[in-house]
């Protein structure tokens, strides 16, 4: 779906392996993206029944930004281990 995810897939997988995160879970996260940024969120299908009447953001699991030197910067959140940790 998101070309950034596909393009950065190897680096994301490497990052997951180094930090004990489950890449298969990462692939299932909801994706939002801009020019040089990718946001992975956990979408709970049981929530959202009120549509746009409830705009509470879904939990952000991982932010990935491309730096000026081309390297990817990974930012974790308080939700990271919960949703993409290998043991949950």
């Amino acid at each position, binding site marked *: 779906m998101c070309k950034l995810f596909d393009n950065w897939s190897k680096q994301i997988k490497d990052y997951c392996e180094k930090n004990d995160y489950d890449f298969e879970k990462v692939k299932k996260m909801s994706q*939002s993206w801009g020019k040089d940024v990718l946001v992975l969120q956990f979408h709970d299908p049981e929530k959202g029944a009120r*549509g746009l009447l409830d705009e509470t953001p*879904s939990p952000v699991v991982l932010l990935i930004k491309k730096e000026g030197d081309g390297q990817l910067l990974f930012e974790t959140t308080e939700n990271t281990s919960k949703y993409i940790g290998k043991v949950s």
Partner: protein
Amino acid sequence: MSIHSIDSPIEQRNTGKGNPNAVLTFGIDLNNRQKQLLALLTEFDSRITVPKKAVNMTDLSALTAYTGDEFALFTKGNERLIIRGNAVSVNIDIEQAKQMSKQGYRWSGHTHPGVDFNCLFSSDGDRTILKQFDQSTSVIYNSKGQFLTFALEE
């Protein structure tokens, strides 16, 4: 009322009028077509249909910068439906989304008031509404004209 697409680009290039970030940061005025749109979108759940070229997501971002309210944009052929929300929501539930999808609308995007990057994050409600339309992505703009595209999970 006629809202012309030509009102925006020239004004915006010369004066900053209608530029969301300029509206928000420097109190620059809306451009003429944005003013005309806002005059018709007076309160929560105001809805108007305009020609496709008469509005784009940057216009809605500017309106959000000016009002602090969300706006949602739907497109069917050469027409656009704009719905005004409030600071935290737009009156679109699952049933309305299903009906609009049946009528042939696509969800072009919506705005989230604010300037921080996290204003661009989608909600469970955003994705639930997106599922009702025959499309896989939509966009969220903040009050500065920044945006992210969000997608359904595969």
